């Protein structure tokens, strides 16, 4: 075990996979010589050289297209899209090409690739560099969607993503890059599609993802201490595949569900989970399902405004307490 930052765990995860398999290659803007604009890929160029770690032009369609063509012909590429907002400039390759090719060709085409991207707010970058768009990806059949909340999961889920034979969109939360945690040494691989119960409670089940996980946990601690409310917190980790079994069984135990999303309100993954529970566990519920989300508004850039928009520990605490009262 070593203590790494979330950022260091990214580089460690990539390096682990590149060492293991020489078909793993990595491309993106400023990722090689410069070590990435978030410094999450420092050292890779030095270790693996220019043939395996390649700087690209500002050509996101070419980046993802190249990754796809390479994946179809024997490589296992990792492509970086610097900010997840930029997925919009290459969404065709993700949503219409990578996601559909295996199915459309009746299984002829294989697509073992990972797109990693910096997702989410908290850096005062404004509406075009702060979005949380994991729900865009979840809406597309044929794409797996992962979003780790801590350094150990970064490494373990990343390894799983690279070894998976399907296209995986791997969302790294920008505001988590500097956070630290213990990361297992050596070959560390998690399973895609497994949620993790990070806190056990009896009164309410809070389902969260990425940056919302530590916030939900902090809110749960306060609920316990101040109000005696005992909350379970589930870290979804993977939106596709979705571990409905864990979610449903945790909701069954508490009878209440609250989702905490960073994405804007409409059609978020919280709505999906809420609708699954409303359909399959209606009679097990003791009260309404509550969704806590960023409002359905572009993100403002001023620190004060941004902080009021993305669910905070205070807001999660308040809304859960209100819901349970």
């Amino acid at each position, binding site marked *: 075990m070593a203590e790494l930052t979330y950022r260091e765990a990214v580089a460690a995860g990539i390096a682990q996979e590149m060492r293991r398999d020489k078909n793993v*290659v990595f491309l993106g803007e400023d990722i090689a010589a410069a070590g990435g604009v978030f410094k999450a890929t420092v050292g890779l160029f030095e270790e693996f050289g220019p*043939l395996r770690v*390649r700087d*690209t*032009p500002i*050509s*996101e*369609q*070419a*980046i*993802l*297209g*190249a*990754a*796809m*063509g*390479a*994946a*179809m*012909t*024997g*490589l296992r*590429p990792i492509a970086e899209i610097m900010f997840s907002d930029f997925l919009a400039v290459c969404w*065709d*390759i993700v949503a*219409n*090409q990578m996601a559909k*090719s*295996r*199915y*459309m*060709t*009746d*299984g*002829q*085409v*294989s*697509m*073992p690739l990972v797109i990693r991207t910096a997702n989410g707010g908290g850096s005062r970058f404004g509406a075009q560099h702060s979005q949380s768009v994991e729900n865009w990806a979840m809406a597309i*059949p*044929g794409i797996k969607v992962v979003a780790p909340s801590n350094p150990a999961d970064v490494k373990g889920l990343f390894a799983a993503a690279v070894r*998976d*034979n*399907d296209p995986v969109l791997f969302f790294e939360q920008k505001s988590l890059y500097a956070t630290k945690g213990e990361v297992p040494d050596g070959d560390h691989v998690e399973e895609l*599609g497994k949620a993790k119960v990070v806190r056990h409670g009896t009164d309410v089940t809070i389902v969260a993802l990425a940056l919302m996980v530590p916030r939900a946990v902090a809110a749960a601690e306060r609920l316990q201490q101040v109000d005696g409310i005992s909350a379970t917190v589930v870290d979804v980790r993977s939106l*596709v*595949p*979705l*571990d*409905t*079994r864990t979610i449903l069984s945790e909701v069954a135990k508490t009878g209440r569900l609250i989702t905490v999303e960073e994405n804007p309100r409409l059609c978020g993954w919280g709505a999906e989970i809420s609708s699954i529970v409303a359909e399959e566990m209606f009679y097990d519920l003791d009260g309404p399902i509550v969704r806590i989300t960023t409002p359905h508004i572009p993100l403002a850039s001023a620190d004060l405004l941004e902080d009021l928009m993305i669910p905070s520990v205070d807001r999660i605490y308040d809304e859960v307490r209100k819901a349970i009262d």
Partner: protein
Amino acid sequence: MAKRPAKKSPAPDLANDDIGEETRMKLFRLQLECRQVEQRANDLFLQNLIKGTSHLGLGQEAIAAGFGGAMQSDDYTFCTYRGHNHTLVRGASMTGVLGELMGRECGLLGGKGGSMHLTSVEHGAMGSYAIIGAHLPIAIGAAWSAQYRGTDQVSVCFFGDGTTNIGAFHEALNMAVVWKLPVVFVCENNLYMEYTPISSVTAVENPAADRASAYGLDSIIVDGNDVDAVHRVARTAFAKARAGDGPSLIEAKTYRHSGHSRADPGAYRPDGELDAWLKRDPIPMYRQRLLDFGIGEADVIKVEKDVLRRVDEATETAKASPPPSADVIVTDVWADGGSAWRN
């Protein structure tokens, strides 16, 4: 077969034939296979046996055949919704093609993809792409893979004139050159997008060739209705790619005899335009050239009969194939063969 063109071809220089009889017969056969399969597809429409859309390459066969005939078996083809020909020339089965158009179990894609997505990975036909531009960057990925793996495979990417105006074209060309990838971009300029003349929406006269210099590439234009000419530029471009000297961009001038797709009667074409191009139909032109080169007409007729017979057989086999079973709906979304998004 269409009428032979009135104008006689110039006398061939037999001594200087860089192509040779065997290749010529192959190029003829490939063109004919494309033509016959697509004409059959058209007949099957009229019998309402093909339900979806379909985009024929009638008149453009010399391009598919000229390039296809120059490829190694492990080269990669990336093409468009107008990709029947490009898929066939790689060796994909006629039954698989016609079956897919009819939505039958025997289809190349088991009925899941349809006419616009023909693929036969075992033959190097890496897919037909129906959203303009997307496959250019994908083709460079296959070339990158070949380069990285150290093979001498070439990735060949076919697209239309209209495709030169979309962003992905630009991104792919630039990155291919910067990375010196073994990829050959082939623009089939058939003068039209769907219904709009390319000249009315393009800043330059030759939509691909006049852009080559923007990527430091040579400007190459070829008569896309002359399969020998096409074959020659293909060989040159492939040799360059295999030598590690990077990509080529080739503009082949041609014309589609039918409308853009099944739904299109092509009414937007000026009077006489189609007729003029029918006079330059690549297949009768090439048939005449074979004869001019001293190939016996009996040999030519033998190929024609053989192709027709195979198309007939493929048609019957495809017709006899059942529709896909409903079970396939849930297969092959994922590598594990299934489609589950939850446990």
